[in-house]
């Protein structure tokens, strides 16, 4: 099989087919102001080799889709990434991905292309989204030379905004799943975490609707003003 590859400076090595696919990835558009339950949103969770956003690597990606106000169980993404020279570390105990599984993983450029094709131009949602956003952006840049511009929403930030009475201002995913009595099938598995984050998001959207925050721009505006208030009071 003939593969046409080339190297140019810092750029990653990609086949012609991969370059074509990268080219074809959807442009991100500005936020749709239609009602929340008419949106397609991708809920994402990453498992990584550690918490250092500059050094650690994405090991697996799990994602589910909220479409028309419901989680569509037929549209899911999960992939473990191949990482050369990966060794078990403290975080292996958390995510439970064995080094052998990583060794059998998907080649990162392929996996990330498939993932971005799965995402399309949909906004992304994650719990503590900043971490996932930065880890994903770095992986995309390193493996694909692609600049991530998708909008991210942080479920950890939306939750206290629409549920002020819960008195959980800095709570983690476990606190919120417990608060709403949700069951996680396998915590720290990217797919299962993505699913429970999506379930949490559905609850929060339902509460947001009651507070007339029924579209993404309105929600974003509230989140921004809350951020400003908190910065001000600090």
């Amino acid at each position, binding site marked *: 099989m003939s593969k046409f590859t080339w190297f140019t400076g810092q750029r990653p090595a990609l086949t012609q087919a991969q370059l074509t696919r990268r080219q074809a990835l959807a442009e991100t558009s500005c936020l749709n102001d239609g009602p929340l339950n008419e949106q397609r949103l991708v809920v994402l969770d990453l498992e990584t080799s550690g918490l250092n956003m500059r050094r650690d690597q994405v090991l697996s990606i799990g994602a*589910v889709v909220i479409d028309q106000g419901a989680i569509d*169980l*037929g549209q*899911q993404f999960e992939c473990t990434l191949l990482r050369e020279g990966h060794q078990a570390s403290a975080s292996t105990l958390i995510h439970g991905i064995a080094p052998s599984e990583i060794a059998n993983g998907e080649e990162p450029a392929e996996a990330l292309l498939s993932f971005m094709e799965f995402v399309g131009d949909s906004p992304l949602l994650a719990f503590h989204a900043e971490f996932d956003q930065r880890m994903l952006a770095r992986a995309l840049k390193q493996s694909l030379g692609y600049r991530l511009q998708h909008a991210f929403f942080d479920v950890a930030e939306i939750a206290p905004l629409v549920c002020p009475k819960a008195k959980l201002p800095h709570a983690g995913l476990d606190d919120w799943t417990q608060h709403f009595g949700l069951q996680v099938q396998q915590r720290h598995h990217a797919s299962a975490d993505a699913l429970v984050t999506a379930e949490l998001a559905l609850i929060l959207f339902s509460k947001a609707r009651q507070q007339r925050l029924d579209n993404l721009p309105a929600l974003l505006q509230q989140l921004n003003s809350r951020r400003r208030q908190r910065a001000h009071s600090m």
Partner: protein
Amino acid sequence: MSSADAIAQAGKTAVLQNIHGTMAFLQKFPPFNQMDTAHLAYLVENCQLRFYGEGETIIKPTDGPVEHFYIVKQGRVHGERPHSARRGTETTFEITSGECFPLAALIGERATRTEHLAAEDTFCLLLNKPAFIKLFSLSNPLRDFALRGVSSLLDQVNQQVQMRAVETLGAQYSLDTRLGQLAMRTPISCSPDMPLRDAVKLMHEQQVGSIVIVDPKLKPLGIFTLRDLRRVVADGVDLAQPIDCLMTQSPFDLPPDASAFDAAMAMTERHIAHVCLVERGQLCGVISERDLFSLQRVDLVHLARTIRHAGRVETLAALRSDVRQLVDSMLAHGASSTQITQLITLLNDHTVSRVIELTLEDLGDPNIPFTWLVFGSEGRSEQTLHTDQDNGILFEAADAAEAAAIRSRLLPLAQEINQRLAQCGFTLCKGNIMAGNPELCLSRHEWSRRFSSFVQEATPENLLASSIYFDLRAVWGATKGCDHLREGLLQQVAGNSLFQRMLAENALRQRPPVGMFRDFVVARSGAEKDTLDLKVQGLTPFVDGARLLALAHGVNACNTLERLRALIQQGVIEAQDGAAYEEAYHYIQQARMQQHQLQARDGLPYSNRVDPDHLNHLDRRILRESFRQAQRLQSSLAQRYQL
């Protein structure tokens, strides 16, 4: 591995985590725990997960035909409908984690009749209708579950639903199947002048057991079957004769909309093996005994015929085990408890009649016309395999002296009949409610005086007696005397509101065992610890309630379901309520019969007590809902009679 394969593989394992998790959750509940793994995976892959905040409507009647099959993943859903008596709404059922809705509406391809609300924050899995239909045709456990009427109980719908489901969702053998559907091929027919030889040739070529003789407009004139052929060959008839000299005239017919059960009952009653299907006066099909019972080992029509012609009581006694086998196989074929009780009653009636005839032959006929009456469950045509004798004799007499004379002649006969019935498995009545008791071998005048005394003096004994004797029916002999007796009774009760009130108090005595907190109340001690009584606590409230309302409103019927239907027709109870009572009664009866069946197979004595903890999740839940309907009937009586 090529990269495309790798992605497909990765995609699969990715789906597996959450899909598997959801499957593992569903596998804790029926019918999902019995479903094939591949079918269950297909189900989950085609689901959406949706959230409903507390108080949010999930589906309502105005949404139009139901488009999804809902499974509660987490939370609670209430069914609400307008209150029948008061303003506002009432919660008619509750659905919790692992349970699904609205089966009846989905299968019936219509809107739900009940608004479904999230009683608390709730997640539901929604399977789209095309995927549901596909699974319905592939998965037996799902289909059985859906057709068993769990949702029709919850949704309070009539049983039409099941019949339509069979049409839309693929043929499935059931006693509710339309005859038009069972008669696949065009009927073989001929004109009346066809020579016998040609008619038989036609039957042979077409490989059928019967030929229908029709006029030019296709109206059936007669039928000729293989059994008839045996007869004419034995008689040495000329094969050139036209067939109309040899056919059975005016064959019995049913419309194609009648059910398989209707045909089975007709064959059993009339001892025939073929039923013509006729629509607008034209022959459109023939149903044979074999079409109906091709799957059954014991055949109903044959059994009825054998009973009716048995030459000795011992033969009748031996046939009881065939009756049990038949009931077994009918239960397995999804026959409803109503169909089975009707059938047992019919076979029991045949047995009783035959026992009376044999006894008359053996002891000599006194040549006094009399009517054999039955009371209680036998009177209501609601017998199960567990049958007590409750019977009496009615005869006509001009005065007390003549009555006494006739009685003394009939009593030995009656006592012998009682003994022989006992031999056939009809247990002797502990309370001596039997025709051989001089107090129950009465002239019509004596009976009506006795019944009046029950109504006039409402002592506890008389109330109890009225709950047995007022469900009466004639099984053998002229029925006119029994009809007169019942008419007189209805007149007396209709005009006596005090008696009605006493009956109502009586009907409230047995409280259905449903506790405050969504569960059962069971016996706390003794041998019956942790059990409840399906008959006394479950069925009796319906039977007593229906009897009271029927007697008070001049309803002739004795059967509880027939009484309920007549009461709906007269506007005494609302159609929706009646249908719900019917479903509930039906289910409890079914549960009781299945239990008897198991006990009979294990050689245990029959018992109506059941430990709800031994039931599976589904049965437990339906039973609870059924008892809740009994409770609703009682509270409507309490309201009506201001108790």
